[in-house]
């Protein structure tokens, strides 16, 4: 009987541009940036809703690169918010408390909404500060 150690492990070669979805996505981002300049309209693209071949998502992220801003939030697990080399194009990645990805978006906007302080949180913060000073 042959053992599992004798079995050759099949290595699948990584394909390149298999779905051809990277280029159209970059064009979609280009259109979204033009809209942002024209009338301030924001665009959000959910990366998990698109078919991408292994390696294609990384290719897209490599194309977008890193710009001047990198932020890490801690709200229900971490969230990374990175401005790409194209100002106004942000990559937002949500993780759960076990550091597993639960959402991956490209946002085309001045600033992703999650970075702003939220009214409810500000109100709660004010109450806490008042209590502390009382």
């Amino acid at each position, binding site marked *: 009987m042959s053992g599992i150690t004798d079995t050759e492990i099949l290595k699948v070669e990584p*394909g390149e541009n298999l*779905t051809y979805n990277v280029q159209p996505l970059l064009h979609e981002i280009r259109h979204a940036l033009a809209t942002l300049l024209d009338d301030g309209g924001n665009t959000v693209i959910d990366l998990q809703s698109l078919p991408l071949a292994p390696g294609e998502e990384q290719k897209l992220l490599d194309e977008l690169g890193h710009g001047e801003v990198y932020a890490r939030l801690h*709200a229900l697990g971490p969230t990374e918010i990175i401005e790409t080399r194209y100002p106004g194009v942000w990559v937002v990645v949500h993780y*759960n408390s076990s550091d597993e990805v639960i959402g991956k978006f490209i946002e085309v906007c001045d600033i992703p909404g*999650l970075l702003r302080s939220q009214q409810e949180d500000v109100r709660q913060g004010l109450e806490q500060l008042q209590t502390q000073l009382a």
Partner: protein
Amino acid sequence: MSKDETLGEALRRQGISRRGFLKFCAATASMMALPPSMVPAIAAALEKARRPSVIWLSFQECTGCTESLTRSHSPTVEGLIFDTISLDYHHTLQAAAGSAAEAAREAAMEENNGNYILVVDGSIPLGNPGFSTIAGISNQSMLMETAKGAAAIIAVGTCAAYGGLPHADPNPTGAVSVGDLIKDKPIINVPGCPPIPVVITGILAHFLTFGTIPELDELGRPKAFYGKSIHDRCYRRPFYDKGLFAETFDDEGAKKGWCLYKLGCKGPTTYNACATTKWNEGTSFPIEAGHPCLGCSEPDFWDGGGFYKALSMPTEDITRSAVYAIGAGAAAGVALGALNRAKKKRVEKAHEKVTIDDLDKG
């Protein structure tokens, strides 16, 4: 969380910031396959959502559907969705058993009459009530009784949705689906063997958010998750279009990641979200791991004629053999008898017996 507390109130009580809540809504929208532009509407609805009562019944099943959900490793979003429902009865997960468990089910039914969600996994045997019982109650009786006061029914897994494996030919228990028995309630079919966990929670989230059932296809499946075929969203689709196929599991085509159609992939006739939602926290799905799609979210997928036969091939070799027999002027019955005998011999030959000694040698 008390039944009167809204989800927004419950999250704030747990110290979750507004940012955290908005992140939860973004992930929930993605999970429900809704466009990100819906996030504000989801946030507004979830803020006010109240805790629905859920009764989960398991009939002829393997517990794979519950395993899929409870081992989904996404404690934040799916855990929160689950925290916001009142799972009043799930006999695999609950500590109580027998009459105490049944009393809990009856209490939940009475208290939430007309408003609770009934989740069912597993098929229902009609051949003999004794084939599958819980606390001495037949599956059919329990389903009919519990369905009466339900607002909606979610049939989780291919067994509950279409009969699944128990329904496969020759269907020894007379297994039927939920939809075969219940005709007067909205039923959402969530097939898959098992279904993708986020699809299960996505539907619960949809109900929680909008208080309605999502748009369904002609087989009763939510279009958001089952609206596109695996084939349409498969990253190997360009190879299919170019006619580049793997012929065996270890040839050059397989190594290059070519289309698995000829190895029996049922992607072209299977509607599910595997190709985009993927499994194991979005790591991959069967085709990405080099295996053809089995078509597990389709009715009667076990009887489709073989997992490794291309869709274009006849489901039974018997058809071709019989045609040859008629062509040669032989009686078809004789030819079929010969074919069956040959098949039996092949099976006997293929099944080598392994002894304890063989295992020791390995």
